[in-house]
């Protein structure tokens, strides 16, 4: 089925999902909609579970119906190169040198896009996939956690990842 068409169907499912959740007395745990080949499924955290921060007003729960769709964007459309280790992130091979990559650059899978220093060891950070650099998410010389997104990529169209 063509992407566009699929998109429309999913759009429909999403609308239905939002209406549905709005109609129902919450807290809903899971919603699953299927139309032919297309399936939409949303599952919420247990509102009773401490998973939510105290700050987060529980009243908001129903409102979150729309969230998944919204949130989906960055997660699905914007992959990122992540830190392989805890350490300090460097954009360039050495102080003053040119950064490995800048916004707009195209990167190949395996290309070095930065360095994370840990215990005086320099760990090269390599792109796992091809794409265009849309944002550098961490400043040069800043501490990073394991698996922290460092560089946001825009996948190359048609590229399957």
């Amino acid at each position, binding site marked *: 089925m063509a992407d566009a068409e699929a998109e429309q169907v999913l759009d429909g499912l999403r609308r239905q999902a939002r209406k549905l959740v709005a109609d129902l007395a919450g807290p809903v745990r899971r919603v699953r909609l299927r139309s032919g080949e297309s399936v939409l499924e949303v599952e919420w*955290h*247990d509102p*009773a*579970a*401490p*998973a939510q921060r105290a700050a987060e007003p529980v009243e908001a729960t129903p409102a979150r119906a729309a969230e998944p769709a919204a949130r989906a964007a960055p997660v699905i459309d914007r992959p990122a190169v992540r830190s392989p*280790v*805890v*350490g*300090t992130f460097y954009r360039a091979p050495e102080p003053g040198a040119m950064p490995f990559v800048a916004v707009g650059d195209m990167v190949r899978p395996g290309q070095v896009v930065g360095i994370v220093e*840990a*215990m005086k*060891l320099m760990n090269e950070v390599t792109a796992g996939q091809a794409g265009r650099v849309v944002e550098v998410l961490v400043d040069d010389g800043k*501490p990073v*956690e*394991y*698996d*922290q997104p460092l560089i946001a990529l825009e996948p190359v169209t048609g590229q399957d990842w």
Partner: protein
Amino acid sequence: MFDKVLIANRGEIALRVLRACRELGVRTVVVHSSADADSLPVRLADEAVRIGPAASRRSYLNAAAIVEAARQTGAQAVHPGYGFLSEDADFAEICAENGLVFVGPPPQVMSALADKSTARALMSRAGLPLPPGSVRTLPTVGEAQEVAADVGYPVIVKAAAGGGGRGMTVVRSAAELPRAYARTRAAAQVAFGDDRVYVERFLADARHVEVQVLCDSHGNGVHLGTRDCSVQRRHQKLIEEAPAPALRQATVDTVAEVALRGALSVGFTGAGTVEFLVDEAERCHFLEINCRIQVEHPVTEMVTGIDLVQEQLHVAYGTPLRLRQSDVRLHGVAIECRVNVEDPDRDFAPAPGRLDRFRPPGGPFTRVDTHGHAGYLVSPHYDSLLAKVAVWAPDRDAALDRLDRALAEFDVAGPGVRTTIPFARRVLRDPAFRAARHTTALVERLLTPPTDDAPPNGDAPPGDGAPGASPARGVVPDPRGATGPDGRTPVSAVPAAGPTTWRNR
């Protein structure tokens, strides 16, 4: 006191250390794997750093990442909790090299005590009674046969690098010895990269009694009484109590004194546990010294009123002990039950999952240490200890009744989730246990259908149930011991094969 301490552990013990820090006004850094990103210790920490993926060997056993996280956050000390890196001398070394205080004994003391034959030699020199057997390791089967003949069968062949009940084989007759000797060495080589073994008399019907000691870096030390941990399944403790019941006061006093003397003789610092086997005649036989805070430390805290984790931090900071032996007075009886997500009906197979319901007990003289909460996903990646329920009472009977009351009101449920609570309550109802006549054979007896010759009360052996379990089992290092809270060696040291690989995922 330190301004900031890094907690290099997870689960209930990470929370335990965090609480001690809070109460001392020390800021906390909790390092965690991706699997624990939303765990309670992480949420309650002042700072949290993700150091690796779920697999322990790349997160909680990742010394480099932990030290780097300490550097980033400016932590001055590292508390390793139990298991994981808590008894890894190399890690303690690395901490020191990087200007971090490791909360535990000096590295050289840790490595000396980690080698059981060295530890035995040191302790026997300090006057601690060893089980009859060889002090040094035995490079040839011939020497093993000599020693075995001397001490008499059954004997137990133990790996020098073993411990926590791992890497040992029970041998009932001279005929079995050569094969058992060979297999134990082979298994030890695989598990510990060290195939040295020694032989000692196998004590079939004994109690596991341990002494809590606390030593500072100025040569001072106190003992905080005894614990009985005889309720074990394959060397995994299920129920622990303080003080050790039904022993003559003289026995208790002696074992406590020699334990402290032994610890001080090797320059031990911090909180440590000296383990003994006590036979029917109340003869005490030294087993090993543990250099970490132990899972069962709460029962000692409840009978002494002393916060052991706070004392660990004071000692690590260099503060002289604030206690003299005369300040340590024991009151009443405390009993702790470990609540593991395991299925006793399926040979205690791990039974993790999402906790739909989680309501721990409360009320008078009842303490719960747990990282669990409603909605928590118990990860299959780690040890199955979910909670510890400990109670205090003026006497043992009242404590047992109180513990049963508390366990009865503990509400844990979720798809696929099973706990050891029902089994623990079975133990509490056992006449031998209630009368404190039980030994390390108790659990095996409860798990094996009763036979006519089996004594109804008391645990006079089917020796099979005693430490070392069955030869077949004993020869394979018990992986439970490996990742278990009391495990001494990293997960990665366990052969990642067989029905237990789930632990190494």
